[in-house]
C-alpha cells in the first residue's frame, strides 16, 4: 500500500489549493478526484471575482493552472472516486478507491457539493436531452431556441446570462418574487433583452419526446398551471454536500455539512475538512481556496507535532 503524508479527497478549488500548500511544504501529497479537476469551477465560463484577474478568467483554465501549480511542487493526482475513508488503530488513515488502498498520516476532505435536483417527473428521463445542470457545457446545443432556467441565486443568473449567447429567449423561473443573486448579476439580467422572469413559480413536470418540448409550471400563489414550450431546462437550485465519507467520523449539521473549527480541524486528530463540504456562509472559489490553504497548513502543523 502506497502511503502519503497528506491525502486530499476532492480536486476542486479547496482541494487543489490545499495540494499547492501541502506539496510546497515538502509533504508527500496525493489528490483524489472522481470527476474533473476544478470541481464546480471547471464548468464556470468566467470567474470575475477571483483576485488577480481584472479581466476575469475562464473557470476551467483557472482550475488547470492551480492543478499545474500543485503538480509543479510534486502533488500527485489520482483520477478515482474514494469509496471509503477509515482511521486505523495507530491514528493513520486508509483511503480506499474502487481499485486500490492508500495510507495517509493526515487527510483533508474537500469533496465539495453536488447540484440539487428538482425531483419532478421527466427530470431524470431527459438528462442529457434537454435537462442540464451546466449551461456552460450545454447551452450551445440550443441555439435559436427557447429555454428555461430554474433558480434565483448567483449560479442561476450567471448561467442564464451565458445562455443568452445562444438561445432565442431565456425564461428564469423562480419560486419567489425576488432574486438571491448578487446585485451586479441581477442588473445585467434585467438589462438583457433575451431574459424574462416568471416569478412565484415552480416547475411541476418536464415533458417531451426524444428531447424536452415543454415544461408545466405552477404559480405558487394562485395555484394556476401553465404549459410553457422550451427545448431545454437548466436547473440551479442549490447544492448538497458530498459528506458521505465523513459520516460517523465527524459531526455534521442538519444539511449534511461537516462542522469544523477555524483551523478546518475536526474532532479526529489529523482529519481536516475544507470548502463546500463544510458548514459556512460564503460558498465562493476564494473562500474554498482559503479553506484549502488553512487545512493544509493545519495538516502540516499536525504532522510536525507528531515528529
Amino acid at each position: 500500500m502506497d502511503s502519503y503524508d497528506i491525502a486530499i479527497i476532492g480536486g476542486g478549488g479547496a482541494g487543489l489549493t490545499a495540494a499547492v500548500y501541502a506539496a510546497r511544504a515538502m509533504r508527500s501529497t496525493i489528490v483524489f478526484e472522481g470527476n474533473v479537476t476544478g470541481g464546480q469551477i471547471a464548468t464556470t465560463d468566467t470567474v470575475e471575482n477571483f483576485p488577480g484577474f481584472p479581466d476575469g478568467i475562464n473557470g476551467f483554465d483557472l482550475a488547470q493552472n492551480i492543478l499545474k501549480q500543485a503538480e509543479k511542487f510534486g502533488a500527485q493526482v489520482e483520477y478515482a472516486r474514494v469509496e471509503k475513508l477509515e482511521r486505523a488503530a495507530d491514528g493513520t488513515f486508509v483511503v480506499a478507491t474502487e481499485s486500490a488502498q492508500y495510507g495517509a498520516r493526515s487527510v483533508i476532505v474537500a469533496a465539495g457539493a453536488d447540484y440539487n435536483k428538482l425531483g419532478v417527473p421527466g427530470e431524470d428521463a431527459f438528462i442529457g436531452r434537454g435537462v442540464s445542470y451546466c449551461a456552460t457545457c450545454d447551452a450551445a446545443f440550443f441555439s435559436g431556441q427557447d429555454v428555461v432556467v430554474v433558480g434565483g441565486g448567483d449560479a442561476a443568473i450567471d448561467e442564464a446570462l451565458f445562455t443568452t449567447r445562444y438561445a432565442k429567449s431565456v425564461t428564469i423561473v423562480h419560486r419567489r418574487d425576488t432574486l438571491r443573486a448578487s446585485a451586479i448579476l441581477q442588473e445585467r439580467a434585467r438589462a438583457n433583452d433575451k431574459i424574462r422572469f416568471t416569478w412565484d413559480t415552480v416547475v411541476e413536470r418536464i415533458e417531451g419526446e426524444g428531447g424536452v418540448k415543454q415544461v408545466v409550471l405552477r404559480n405558487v400563489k394562485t395555484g394556476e398551471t401553465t404549459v410553457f414550450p422550451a427545448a431545454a431546462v437548466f436547473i440551479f437550485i442549490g447544492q448538497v454536500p458530498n459528506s458521505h465519507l465523513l459520516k460517523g467520523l465527524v459531526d455534521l449539521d442538519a444539511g449534511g455539512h461537516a462542522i469544523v473549527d477555524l483551523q478546518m480541524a475536526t474532532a479526529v486528530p489529523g482529519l481536516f475538512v475544507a470548502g463546500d463540504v463544510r458548514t459556512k456562509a460564503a460558498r465562493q472559489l476564494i473562500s474554498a481556496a482559503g479553506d484549502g490553504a488553512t487545512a493544509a497548513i493545519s495538516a502540516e502543523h499536525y504532522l510536525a507535532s507528531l515528529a
Partner: protein
Amino acid sequence: MVAPIVQELSEEYSGKVNFFKMNTDENPTVPSKFGIRSIPSLLIFKGGELKGTVVGFRPKSDLKKRIDEALV
C-alpha cells in the same frame, strides 16, 4: 474535462479500442446527427455501429464496464 480518464483508458485498451475526441463547436452537424445535447457525451462504436452512449461524468469503472460490454 474527462480527458485524463479517457487518456488512461486509451492506454489500457491500446490496440483494442481507438479513442477520438471531437470539438462540438467546430463540428455542429455531427452532434445533432446523434441527438447530443450535453457534454461530455461518449459514444461507443463497433464496426461503424453505435453500441452505447454515456452522458455526463462517470467513474472510470463505469466507462470500462460500458466498453467491455460493447467489446463482447
